[in-house]
């Protein structure tokens, strides 16, 4: 799947670029984006180490397990395949909490930690499990308590009510989350039947 999408984007991009006479811009974009990827990783490196380190402490003390216990019913519905008390659940909860409070810097490392734990439960290391797909879908439609970035942009543009859109954002992301959960659940069942 990813192979085709990646191949398609690049080939179509080059073809369109040649027809548009924008091949110079395209060449420049290739080189620039490769360096951007490195910059992103370097930017991520410090916070990643910080949060995986703190996660290790939280896990050792039993804090993660306690946190996962509180939201167990919801987790059981979303991730029926993860055994209870598995460290993956704790990491998932912390990632959700970080997303909810808009802590992007914390959410990504915690999410990656959750994926690492989910991978330990995976019998086929190359293929995503249902739990992984559900987790990713929840992350792409993450509900945020206060969408700080967009409020800042609106304030800078001189809005009379920069935070007016909080309500609509909650509504839209709830719809997105619901649609994502339903779709992921349906597709998971469909795949199981095929097997």
């Amino acid at each position, binding site marked *: *799947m990813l192979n085709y999408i*990646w191949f398609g*984007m*690049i080939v*179509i*991009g*080059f*073809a369109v*670029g040649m027809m548009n006479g*924008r091949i110079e811009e395209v060449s420049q974009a290739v080189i620039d*984006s*490769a360096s*951007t*990827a*490195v910059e*992103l*990783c370097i930017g991520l490196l410090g916070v*990643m180490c*910080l949060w*995986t*380190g703190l996660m*290790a*402490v939280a896990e*050792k*003390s039993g804090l993660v397990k306690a946190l996962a216990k509180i939201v167990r019913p919801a987790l059981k519905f979303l991730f029926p395949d993860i055994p209870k008390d598995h460290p993956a659940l704790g990491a998932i909860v912390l990632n959700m909490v970080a997303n909810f*409070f*808009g*802590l992007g810097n*914390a959410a*990504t*490392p915690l*999410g*990656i930690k959750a*994926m*690492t734990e989910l*991978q330990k439960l995976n019998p086929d290391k190359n293929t*995503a499990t249902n739990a992984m*797909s559900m987790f*990713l879908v929840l*992350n792409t*439609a993450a509900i945020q*308590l*206060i969408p700080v970035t*967009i409020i800042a*942009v*609106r304030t800078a*543009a001189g809005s009379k*009510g*920069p935070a*007016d*859109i909080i*309500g*609509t954002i909650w*509504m839209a*992301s709830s719809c*997105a*989350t619901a649609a*994502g959960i339903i*779709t992921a659940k349906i*597709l998971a069942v469909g795949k199981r039947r095929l097997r």
Partner: protein
Amino acid sequence: MKSISAYAIPVIILVVLIAGMYKGVKVYDIFIEGAKEGLTTVIRILPSLVGLLVAVSVFRASGALDLIIYAFKPLATALSIPPDALPLAFLRPISGSASLAMVSDIIKTHGPDSFVGRVVSTMMGSTETIFYTLTVYFGAVGIKNIRYTLAAALIADFASVIASVWACRLFFGG
């Protein structure tokens, strides 16, 4: 309201460290051990990220994205998505920084409190950058076959676009 986010990180760190001390965990030693894990993970992500960003930038710089947007214009009109918000609907799942730039631009042109301004603000705030999230998370653990994940994420994204327009109409009229 902003102060909640400012307090969140110190509070989380304090709770983790105090709970660790209370349970007799060697907090510093364990922290260092855990932090090492972060290092290897980031290195594992880099190749996937280079691949993703190159494909996305080629697609955008060539004008291929504009073609797709043009092709979908009739559908947007049918779903009553404002035409000025349409490019963002396609850009949002692909590139976070580019869509933020686009939102700023639309807000500057039409005003932050215009209908379009509110719709794009809502769209920006209600979903994540799908391609980036998938690349980083799956790349970190080396998953190659992502099965239905992209399909489900795109359907969620589509729902958020429709819901953004709908919610803005409900809240602000227009």
